């Protein structure tokens, strides 16, 4: 450490210790205020927060959210306990459940679908043409005859497997949730929705002899929030375990309580800051406060360890807490700040993943760690300085005895700073690297299991989902590709429909795809229907009249087409949402898109951008529109006719003509609102297939983002750590000795994830970055102390032995304490919490082992000049 640095430290030391009463008062006030704010913090879950909105797929999602709904669907299955559904009680329940779903706040009424809703109709062929109607006739009474009619209507409506279970032992109600009220823009409360769903379930299960299964994002949020409440218990358990271990370690009540106080203060401040920033706490994010607590404890232990070590070196019976505190502050300020800055940067890098919920986590964690710099490096020394040193003799004698007796354990560990252990350790390191690297390649991006991976496989939600996908042929996993074409393509363009149909068939041939549903299939079925149900007519017709006849009865509320029939989703139901399945489907879509790229119409593209850029007060804009519309000629698409007419022979200076044009433009824009994604206009009959909506579409986008972010994120974390270490320790080889064990642990963590079937995804990606951030603390503290001893002229082995007895002990203790703390998460109701617990415990322990066993061995090989002291 340079002179300049130590001067700075002295100034800071004086500043803090001379004003400790004021600072203490200030910190208390801040804590009280922050505590108040923290208590106001609300749980805030959101669907869109989990979407990488900048990703191509999610732009498609946003472009068509209002037209086709997103992936925010609710499915409520009413199943009989035994026997089939054709009994009065079942129909009463299903009707009541349908009605109840309508009344859930946030449900889009038009989207509610069951055999009781009018948007489900059947069509049948009779001698003189078609007959059709609602599945449940208006004169429905529960008689055996009527049930026969309803059963045949269900079959004719083609909803078996979708709205009705394959063997008629249950039926479903579907609904789409709107995250924002379209009028008031008020956000829905997912927990309320989940609560209402649970009430519907309870009410109908209690009253009748049916069983209800409920799935959907809102239900997931509800279940996760409920599970997240248990986090508080885990927090309490971890606190208790930490306290017990701290007491065992320090042998003193105050030394036990102070690190806990500092850490809790950091958490309180963190939560208060969140509230001040206008955030809520997301259930997925509820673990960050605990991490902050853990990091706080980790640094606190270093403090008490150094303090204890220093105080006993004082002249007998002149143990001065304040002097020791000042010393501790001076010694630990630099490594403390470096370590915490590395943590901060580690967390901050997560921000680069463009998903709101992860960015919230990055902000939450970054703020938390930054606050620890104050609580641990300012508050902690002040608290230590207040320790009353009378009656302290017994404690200090014990400490002194401990200090003066050689420890066999640490002696053995110190052996890693010389051969043969140093050589052996490096060999093991290389072996583990190879193993870790190979195994880590097996790690999946995204989910590697079926069901909702945030919840336990045997959680109610996952068993519900399993029941639904086994009883109904359509699973719950769907990726919807949006086909864009010219206006009225579905009836006027055989070419477009043929292309869409071909695409759907290609998708049906992709492994992992269960079923594909799109408008062209309905067009074929209805065309056959118009020809007396003869399957030989089950084909797309080149005849526009036939196509109009076939498709006129299909409403937009089927979700198969938009208002002007220029856009048709292709719903691809997949067997599961495993990452491998998703990437196979996405690859197949891309393959098809590359083979058949749509032809662009440049003139129309320019015209459309001129229309959106139109400004009746700007002559250039008007002129440009006149020019672009004039270019189209007489063969232009129908939807531009009125604008083309308006600009015909138009004079820019004629204010009446401009006004007329402005009206036409306004009406065009009203009917064709600009999409978020600016894409070129297609030539007549061309089709553009856009990925993707549906829950699997969301996952595909998320997996993409996570995959793309993973490497840059790690590179940033490591770059930051390397730079900080270089600046502090001014040795390249020493820095390597710190960073290489960290890199090994990163690989091993990936290998562990592959081994345990934990995929790299939104929930787990931060863990790896956090693990690196926390792991580096150990290395920094150890290396900093060791460097100090080396500079005093000790040889590597002795320097390391001394380091171990002080810092090493603290590192070992911290890692074990934290690992036990997060280890308890394994018993959580939430799968992702359990997974995170295992991963974090693994990283804490392995980073500790890396710092204690590998770092000295690397130092031995990389810095041979220190092998012998000077």
């Amino acid at each position, binding site marked *: 450490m340079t002179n300049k640095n130590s001067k700075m430290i002295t100034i800071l030391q004086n500043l803090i210790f001379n004003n400790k009463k004021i600072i203490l008062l200030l910190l208390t006030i801040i804590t009280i205020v922050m505590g108040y704010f923290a208590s106001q913090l609300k749980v805030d879950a959101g669907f869109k927060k989990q979407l990488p909105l900048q990703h191509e797929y999610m732009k498609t999602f946003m472009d068509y959210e209002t037209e086709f709904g997103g992936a925010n669907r609710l499915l409520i299955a009413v199943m009989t306990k035994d026997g089939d559904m054709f009994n009065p009680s079942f129909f009463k329940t299903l009707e009541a459940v349908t009605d109840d779903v309508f009344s859930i706040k946030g449900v889009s009424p038009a989207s509610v679908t069951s055999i009781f809703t009018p948007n489900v109709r059947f069509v049948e*062929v*009779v*001698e003189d043409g078609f007959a059709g109607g609602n599945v449940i006739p208006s004169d429905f009474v529960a008689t055996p005859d009527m049930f026969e009619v309803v059963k045949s209507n269900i*079959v004719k409506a083609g909803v078996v497997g979708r709205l009705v279970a394959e063997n008629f032992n249950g039926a479903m109600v579907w609904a789409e949730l709107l995250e924002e009220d379209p009028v008031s823009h008020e956000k829905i409360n997912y927990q309320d929705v989940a609560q209402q769903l649970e009430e519907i379930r309870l009410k109908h299960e209690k009253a009748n002899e049916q069983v209800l299964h409920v799935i959907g994002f809102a239900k997931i949020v509800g279940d996760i929030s409920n599970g997240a409440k248990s986090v508080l218990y885990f927090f309490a358990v971890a606190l208790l375990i930490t306290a017990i271990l701290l007491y065992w370690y320090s042998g003193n009540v105050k030394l036990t309580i102070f690190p806990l106080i500092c850490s809790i203060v950091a958490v309180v401040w963190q939560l208060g800051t969140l509230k001040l920033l206008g955030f809520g706490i997301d259930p997925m994010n509820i673990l960050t406060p605990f991490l902050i607590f853990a990091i706080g404890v980790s640094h606190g232990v270093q403090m008490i360890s150094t303090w204890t070590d220093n105080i006993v070196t004082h002249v007998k019976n002149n143990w001065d807490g304040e002097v020791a505190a000042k010393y501790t502050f001076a010694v630990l300020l630099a490594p403390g700040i470096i370590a915490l800055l590395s943590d901060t940067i580690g967390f901050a890098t997560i921000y680069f993943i463009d998903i709101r919920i992860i960015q919230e986590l990055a902000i939450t964690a970054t703020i938390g760690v930054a606050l620890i710099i104050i609580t641990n490096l300012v508050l902690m020394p002040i608290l230590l300085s207040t320790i009353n040193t009378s009656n302290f003799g017994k404690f200090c004698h014990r400490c002194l005895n401990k200090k003066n007796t050689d420890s066999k354990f640490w002696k053995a560990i110190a052996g890693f700073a010389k051969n043969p252990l140093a050589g052996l350790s490096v060999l093991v390191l290389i072996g583990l690297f190879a193993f870790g690297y190979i195994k880590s390649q097996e790690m999946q991006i995204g989910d590697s299991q079926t069901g909702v991976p945030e919840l336990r496989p045997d959680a109610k939600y996952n068993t519900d989902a399993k029941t639904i996908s086994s009883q109904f042929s359509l699973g719950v996993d769907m990726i919807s590709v949006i086909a864009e074409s010219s206006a009225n393509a579905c009836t006027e363009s055989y070419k477009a429909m*043929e292309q869409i149909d*071909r695409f759907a*068939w*290609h998708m*049906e*041939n992709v492994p992992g795809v269960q079923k594909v549903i799109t408008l062209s299939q309905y067009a074929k079925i209805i065309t056959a229907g118009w*020809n*007396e*149900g*003869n*399957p*030989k*007519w*089950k*084909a797309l*017709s*080149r*005849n526009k009249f*036939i196509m109009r006849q076939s498709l006129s009865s299909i409403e937009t509320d089927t979700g198969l087409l938009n208002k002007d029939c220029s856009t048709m989703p292709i719903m691809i139901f997949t067997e599961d949402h495993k990452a491998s399945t998703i990437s196979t489907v996405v690859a197949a879509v891309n393959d098809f898109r590359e083979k058949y790229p749509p032809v662009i119409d440049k003139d129309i593209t320019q015209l459309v951008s001129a229309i959106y850029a139109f400004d009746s007060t700007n002559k250039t804009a008007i002129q440009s529109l006149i020019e672009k519309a004039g270019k189209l000629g007489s063969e232009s698409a129908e939807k531009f006719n009125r604008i083309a007419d308006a600009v015909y022979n138009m004079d820019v200076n004629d204010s009446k003509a401009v006004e007329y044009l402005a009206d036409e433009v306004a009406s065009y824009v009203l009917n064709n609102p600009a999409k978020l994604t600016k894409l070129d206009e297609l030539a007549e009959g061309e089709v553009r297939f856009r990925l993707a909506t549906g829950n699997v579409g969301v996952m595909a986008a998320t997996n993409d983002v996570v995959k793309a972010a993973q490497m840059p994120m790690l590179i940033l974390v490591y770059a930051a750590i390397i730079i900080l270490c270089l600046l502090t320790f001014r040795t390249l080889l020493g820095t390597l000795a710190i960073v290489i064990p960290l890199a090994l642990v990163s690989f091993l963590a990936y290998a562990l994830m592959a081994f345990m079937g934990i995929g790299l995804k939104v929930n787990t990606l931060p863990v790896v970055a956090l693990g690196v951030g926390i792991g580096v603390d150990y290395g920094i503290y150890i290396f900093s102390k060791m460097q100090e001893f080396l500079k005093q002229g000790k040889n590597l082995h002795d320097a390391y032995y001394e380091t171990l007895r002080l810092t090493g002990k603290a590192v070992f203790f911290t890692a074990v304490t934290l690992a036990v703390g997060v280890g308890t998460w394994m018993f959580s109701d939430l799968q992702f919490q359990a997974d995170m617990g295992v991963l974090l415990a693994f990283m804490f322990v392995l980073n500790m082992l890396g710092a204690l066993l590998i770092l000295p061995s690397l130092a031995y090989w990389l810095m041979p000049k220190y092998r012998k002291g000077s």
Partner: protein
Amino acid sequence: MKKNLIICLILLSTGLLAVDNNEMAELMPKFSQSLYLGIATNNTSIIAVGERGHIAMSNDYGNSWQQSKNVPTKATLTAISIIDNNVWAVGHDTTIIYSSDNGETWQIQFEDKERQMPLLDVLFINESEGFAIGAYGTYLSTYDGGKSWDDSLISADQDFHLNKIIEIDEFKLFVVAEAGNAYRSFDSGKNWESIEMPYSGSMFGAISYENQIITYGLRGNVLVSEDFGETFTQLDSPVQDSLFGSEHTFNNKIILVGANGAVLQYKNMSLSKINIPDGDGDYTEILSIKNNKLVFVGESGISTKQIR
């Protein structure tokens, strides 16, 4: 040597250019699980035709199926006729395709996309004489194996869809059509006369058995004529599902198949329902092969079943 190679390459590339890939039926893994509408056999191969120009072939009595690799159309094929190694298939876009090598390679004999009409059945009575019929009375006939087709209508003043053409004997042909109409020919298809059947719904198919013509169609209706269409007897049908296909099996049974997995047996002017294991979807045709096996084709593809 080098020169030859270049010439080879040029020939190869021009050969590839000659076929517009976009018009060829695509080879797909699940080709056998899509809609099939016609099936026939010449005792060495079984060939089935269906939507998207899919042609499935089996050389092992229906145990395994291969997709024919070079079908020059993506139109939905509705029917097939085989005489020895000569195979004709017809379908939408008024398409007629022909194979002289048992279904290995195909060429287009007739196609008219702009007509916007499907052909619905094809019948060859020997390797040169054949008929293709379809929507709005379309009636195509050939006497040179399809090298040239005479494009005509079955009736000058009617435009009913013609659904099925069958051979009764050396000279007699019979056609069932839309809305209770049928046609018969006494002179191998040169002249046709119109018949009005007692049931006004459409008949989708017919099969000749001993001295009877059994016609079947809309909503399970089955009508039998024992006098070449002079009179018909309507049978009591156990189903309301439309019937689309039929077969005279090796063990001398008449089987009818149709919508919603309907399978009926005809015997002595009466019908009985046969329950089929794993019956599903609409069956469009059926073929009897040896070992008491039946090949069903329809909405969900091709399935081979053993029936007692």
